[in-house]
């Protein structure tokens, strides 16, 4: 397979993201002309167009960008940290803890700030629970971390089921939306963007170290990478990004799993390129998925988490098979010398 030079892919992804944002701002039941979007976007007035863009579509689009980028980055980190291609941002139980927090709040009739605060509290409890248990032993190994995370996740899953089965029908509806991931109530602030850029900067500074860590801890250590500290930093960073995203949009599935893989399959394996590319593609992907979520069955809205899977699964399977076909031509028993 011919690979595109990484710099071009980044430019391409930037264009894709801009296109996704434009699509997102344009789509909806009320038609806002393209010509108006720019004027309204940068100099808001009292018109209906301005209200629709600024109050409804823009916050949603920006939330999708933040969540998509953070989930994709978190996915990249988790896959390296656990050296497991199946790892995703939720594998260590952050979303489970957060969901238990959010669902408890919902079952108590809370909403708005209480909902987000309890989701955040749940995520933080889960992070420290997993970290505390995994780091207790002499050796903090990715195997131990993975097992601890998966088991804690399963525990949260059980609690979620209890909450779902004991709640009233109307609460269950909003619980399900939360669990599947939904951007309709999402609001973000400048802080979220600041946090995203800080994470990006930290990750880019560690990109080479991530390249070695992806090849194994021992190898990374022979090359002078402070693996213990890096592991801890990566775990906390990925958890914080996942928690942020989950608090904004619920547990939107699949973005963190497939975006890094899609890019790896497309030939971007060096983390110096994979990290910015994942953030861009994750943001664009979730933005487009959200467009579909709110327009496909309009006026009814679908949870965006359903759309990410519906779009993501076929694309991913196609890429995987395409790539394997390529590998068969170069790989063969003849190589075994």
């Amino acid at each position: 397979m011919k690979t595109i030079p990484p710099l071009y892919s980044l430019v391409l992804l930037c264009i894709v993201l801009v296109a996704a944002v434009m699509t997102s701002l344009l789509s909806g039941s009320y038609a806002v002309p393209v010509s108006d979007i720019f004027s309204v976007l940068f100099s808001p007035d009292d018109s209906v167009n301005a209200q629709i863009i600024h109050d409804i579509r823009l916050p949603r689009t920006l939330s999708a960008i933040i969540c998509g980028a953070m989930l994709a980055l978190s996915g990249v980190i988790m896959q390296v940290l656990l050296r497991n291609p199946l790892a995703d941002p939720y594998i260590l139980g952050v979303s489970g803890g957060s969901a238990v927090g959010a669902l408890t709040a919902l079952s108590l009739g809370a909403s708005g700030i209480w909902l987000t605060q309890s989701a955040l509290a749940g995520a933080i409890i889960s992070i420290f629970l997993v970290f505390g248990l995994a780091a207790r032993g002499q050796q903090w190994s990715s195997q131990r971390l993975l097992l601890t995370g998966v088991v804690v996740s399963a525990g949260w899953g059980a609690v979620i089921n209890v909450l779902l089965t004991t709640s009233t029908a109307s609460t269950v509806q909003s619980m399900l939306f939360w669990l599947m991931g939904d951007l309709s109530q999402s609001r973000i602030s400048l802080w979220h963007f600041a946090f995203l850029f800080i994470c990006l900067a930290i990750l880019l500074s560690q990109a080479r170290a991530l390249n070695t860590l992806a090849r194994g801890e021992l190898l990374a250590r022979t090359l002078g990478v402070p693996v213990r500290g890096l592991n801890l930093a990566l775990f906390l960073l990925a958890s914080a990004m996942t928690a942020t995203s989950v608090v904004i949009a619920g547990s939107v599935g699949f973005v963190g799993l497939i975006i890094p893989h899609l890019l790896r399959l497309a030939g971007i394996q060096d983390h110096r390129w994979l990290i910015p590319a994942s953030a861009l593609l994750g943001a664009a992907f979730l933005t487009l998925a959200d467009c579909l979520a709110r327009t496909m069955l309009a006026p009814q809205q679908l949870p965006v988490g359903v759309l990410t899977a519906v779009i993501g699964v076929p694309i991913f399977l196609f890429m995987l098979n395409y790539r394997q076909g390529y590998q068969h031509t170069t790989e063969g028993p003849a190589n075994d010398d």
Partner: protein
Amino acid sequence: MTTSQPPLFQTQDLCISQQNKTLCQQLNLTVYPGQSIAILGQNGSGKSTLLHTLQGLHQADHGEIHLSGQALSKWTGRGVAQRVGLLLQQVKDEMPSRVDDFAMLGRLPHSRFWKSDSEQDRNIVAKALSVTDLSGMSARDVESLSGGERQRLAIAMLLAQDPDLYLLDEPGNHLDIAHQISLMTLLHQHIKSMAKAMIFATHDMNLAARFADKVLLLNTDGSYLFGLRDDILSESSLSDVYGHPVRQAQTDTDYPVFFPG
């Protein structure tokens, strides 16, 4: 012997254990630039653990390790990695990577995160891939390589790392005899001409006999024999260390040749 130079590497009374099993007792090793040292011993005698300890990956129970006159623990991880390189016995490939990207990892200790790979880095990597016969495979995925090709790639990465002390854990693993001899010859010439040093652990007595100036025989009880190759390698010492009779062949080579009896 270049004993007039200060030693590159030194251990004093080094004691190593792994899971309560003593592997090395009071080990005193001094490595001068240009020296090649072989470690021989049975399975589980601590060859790998010793190499890991010398790189700082494993904590010694007791004793000191000095690198260029300064305690190993005083060096930063990066500083050690610039000077000491370790060829690991097995590296699992769980994530995809291009062959040239893999070799480029060796440049990590010499790079800064805000700088991209320099022309010099790329040249060093290209040369390392070329001397390990991997030039034609630089765009391939690591997963598609055979065992021997992977071993050559690991050596290429180490050459790109360009350390002063090469620690090689089973360098001949998976290699056909042509590559075994050519790569050992390459490393041997490299350390001689560039005043570097190497310590290699191997199960191949003849690789040790051919490429080592000094030999360290590790017994399973933690005792050891260390000295010049011709003083150490003999039918009786090898038979003792392996617990199996070893015979010396009559050859016209300038190094002894042994075979299991």
